[in-house]
C-alpha cells in the first residue's frame, strides 16, 4: 500500500538517496545530510506543535508500506519570507503612449517584489523513479490540499508554488546569463546553491533594485520569463487542473513562474467530502485505475495519513474500507474522514 504520513528522521537515508538521484534543479533539497536532517527536524517540530503552526514546515512522506521505504516527499511551508526575505520578479506591463505621434508601446517590465511574503507555499516535491506510475505523483502532491482543507486556519488564504524555470542540460539558464550573472558575477548553479542553503542576504546586496525593462534583454532570456522547464510541465498541468494560475510573478534567477490559487478554490478541496468510516469485511479490489480512486485522509494534524480507495467505496453517508486500510489510516468505524478524487475523470467532463 502507498501511504502518506509525516516525514521523520527515520526517512533520512531514503531522502538522501532520492535527493542524490534528482540531480540539479532541486535547490530546496540538496543531497546534504545535515541540511536534510535539519529540515526533517523542523517538520517534526511542526507536527508536534513545538513551533507555531502558522510558521511551520509540513513535510509528508510517501511510504511504500510493503517495502517499508519512503519513496516520495512533498511539503507545505506555512508562510514564506518570515526569517529571510522572499524575492520574486513581477512581470508587469508598462504602457507609454503619445496620441500626438500615434505611438502606443507596451513594455514588459520586471519589478523586484516581496509580494509572496506571508503566503503558504507548496514545495519540495520529490518522487522516486521507481514509483512514478499509478497516480503516486498525484497522491503525493494533492494530499497537501487535503491537509490544508482541514487546517485552513494555519495557512494563508492563497497558496502558491514556484515552478522550475528553463535551463539547458548543463544547468545554464538563459535569464540568469542575461540578467543575474551581470550583477552577481557567478554561475546560476552557484547562486542557486547559495540561495537554497538559506543564505539570501547576498540577494539584497547584489540584486538590481530598479525595474528591468524586458526588451533590453536578449531574445533567449525574454523567451523564458514565466516559462517552465520541460521536466516540470506535467507538474504545472497538474496544478492548473487543480485551479492554479500564473500570478504574474517569477523566479529571480531562472524566470520560472509562480502559480497560485485560493485554497477554497483548489479542486481537491472543493470536491472533497466527509464521510464516516465503516470498516467492512467485504473484500475490496484496491487495484483500480487512478481515475476510479479517491484519496482518503484521516484529518489528523499530528499523524496525518492518506491513502486511496476505489471511488465505489463512497456511500451517501459513509465510506467503507477494509481493515488494513483503516489500520494504515489509524481510523475506526465512525471516524470522520475526508475524501477527494485522485484524478479528474476526463471523460465525465
Amino acid at each position, binding site marked *: 500500500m502507498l501511504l502518506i504520513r509525516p516525514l521523520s528522521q527515520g526517512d533520512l537515508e531514503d531522502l538522501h538517496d532520492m535527493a542524490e538521484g534528482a540531480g540539479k534543479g532541486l535547490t530546496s533539497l540538496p543531497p546534504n545530510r545535515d541540511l536534510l536532517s535539519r529540515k526533517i527536524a523542523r517538520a517534526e517540530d511542526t507536527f508536534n506543535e513545538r513551533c507555531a503552526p502558522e510558521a511551520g514546515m509540513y513535510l509528508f512522506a510517501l511510504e511504500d508500506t510493503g517495502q517499508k521505504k519512503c519513496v516520495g516527499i512533498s511539503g507545505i511551508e506555512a508562510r514564506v519570507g518570515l526569517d529571510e526575505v522572499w524575492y520574486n520578479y513581477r512581470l508587469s506591463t*508598462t504602457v*507609454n*503612449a*503619445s496620441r*500626438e*505621434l500615434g*505611438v502606443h*508601446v507596451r*513594455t514588459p*517590465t520586471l519589478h523586484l517584489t516581496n509580494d509572496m511574503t506571508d503566503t503558504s507555499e507548496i514545495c519540495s516535491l520529490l518522487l522516486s523513479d521507481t514509483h512514478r506510475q499509478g497516480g503516486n505523483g498525484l497522491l503525493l502532491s494533492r494530499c497537501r490540499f487535503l491537509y490544508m482543507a482541514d487546517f485552513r486556519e494555519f495557512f494563508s488564504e492563497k497558496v502558491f508554488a514556484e515552478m522550475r524555470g528553463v535551463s539547458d542540460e548543463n544547468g545554464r539558464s538563459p535569464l540568469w546569463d*542575461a*540578467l543575474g550573472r*551581470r*550583477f552577481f*558575477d557567478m554561475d546560476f548553479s552557484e547562486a542557486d546553491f547559495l540561495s537554497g542553503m538559506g*543564505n539570501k*542576504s*547576498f540577494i539584497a*546586496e*547584489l*540584486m*538590481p533594485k*530598479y*525595474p*528591468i*525593462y524586458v*526588451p*533590453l*534583454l536578449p531574445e533567449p532570456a525574454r523567451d523564458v520569463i514565466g516559462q517552465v522547464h520541460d521536466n516540470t510541465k506535467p507538474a504545472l498541468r497538474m496544478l492548473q487542473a487543480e485551479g492554479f494560475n500564473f500570478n504574474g510573478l517569477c523566479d529571480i534567477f531562472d524566470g520560472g513562474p509562480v502559480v497560485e490559487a485560493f485554497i477554497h478554490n483548489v479542486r481537491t478541496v472543493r470536491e472533497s467530502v466527509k464521510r464516516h468510516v465503516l470498516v467492512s469485511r467485504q473484500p475490496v479490489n484496491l487495484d483500480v485505475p487512478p481515475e476510479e480512486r479517491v484519496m482518503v485522509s484521516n484529518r489528523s494534524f499530528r499523524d496525518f495519513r492518506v491513502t486511496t480507495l476505489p471511488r465505489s467505496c463512497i456511500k451517501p453517508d459513509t465510506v467503507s474500507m477494509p481493515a488494513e486500510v483503516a489500520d494504515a489510516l489509524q481510523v475506526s468505524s465512525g471516524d470522520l474522514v475526508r475524501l477527494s478524487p485522485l484524478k479528474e475523470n476526463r471523460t465525465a467532463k
Partner: protein
Amino acid sequence: MWIVRPARHEDLAGIEKLATAHGARVSTLPQSRDKLSEKIDHSQRSLAGDPALADRERFLFVLEDSGTGRIHGTAGIDARAGNGQPFYNYRRDELIHASHELDVAKHVAVLYPTHELTGKTLLCSFTIDPDLRDTEAFELLSRSRLLFIDRHRERFSDQVVVEIQGVQTEEGDAPFWDSLGRHFFHMDFATADYYSGVKTKTFIAELMPPNPIYVTLLSDAAQAAISEPHEAAARTCQLLEREGFRVGQHIDIFDGGPVLEARTDELTSITRRRNKTARRGEGSRGVRYLVANGDSESFRCSLTNVSDGLGDVVRLNTTIADQLGVSDGDDLVLVAL
C-alpha cells in the same frame, strides 16, 4: 569677408539649403521651412526683447560671405535649455552592490533620467558648409556666440552647455538609440531626432521610460557610445575644450552623446576678451582677432588682424568697419583667434 550676424527672414532659403544639404545631425535646426521661419521669427523677437519670451529666448546667427551675400553656416543659443519645458538628459551614476559575506563589491553603472540642465544656456543649431570645416570661419561662427553672451550677459545663465552629436554608424543608425530608445519610442533614430526638433517635449514625457537604466543591460556598442562624441564632432569638441568646456555626467537621451559644460564667466573667450574703442582708419596688420560690435539686432562679429597695443583704442580698416557697422568711438569686443 566672413560676418556672423543674427538671422533674418531673407536668410530663410539659404538656411534651408544648409539644413537639408548636410547630413550632419542638427536636431535643433529643423528641416521644414515653416519651422525654420518660426525659428528666425523667435530669434528676432528674442533680440527685440519681447517680454512674452522671457526665459524662452532663442537666438539664431548666420555666417555670411559679405562678398556674395550667401549664407554658409548657422549657430544658435537657447538662453534657457528646454525653453520653458523640461530639458531631458541621462545622468551617469554608479551604484556599488557589495556583499560583505561574499567579499565582492560590484560597480553598477546606472543612467538616471534627469532635468538638471534645464534652464542653463545651451549652444545649439550649429551647422556649417563642409568646405569651411577646417577654416577660421568655423571658429568664428562658433565663438562669436560666446561674445554675444558676453555682451548680453544678464540674459544668460551662469552655466553654458553643449550637446555633442553622439556615435552613429555609416548608415545613420545610433547604437545607443537602437539598444535603448528604440524599444520605447518605436521609431528609428532619425524620426525621433526629427520629432525632438519640431514637437513639444510632451512626447518624451509620454514615451521615455521613467526608471533608471542599468548600463550593463545595453548592447556593447551602446555601452561604448555612452558619452562618446561622433567623429565629425572632433573639431567642435576640441574648440570647446579650449574654451573651458568639460565632459560632465550628462548624456543625450537619444544617441548617448556627451554634454559639455562650462561656467559662463570662466569661458576663455569671455575671460580673455577686451573692450576697446573703435577708430576707423587704415589697414590692419598684426594678430588675428575676433571682433564684435553692436547689440541685439545690430550684433556683428568678424575676423581681422589687429595690431593690439596697450591703449584703449583699436584701429579697423574701413571695409571691415563698414561690415561691422562700426563708427568712431564704438565700443568693440576683441578676443584673439
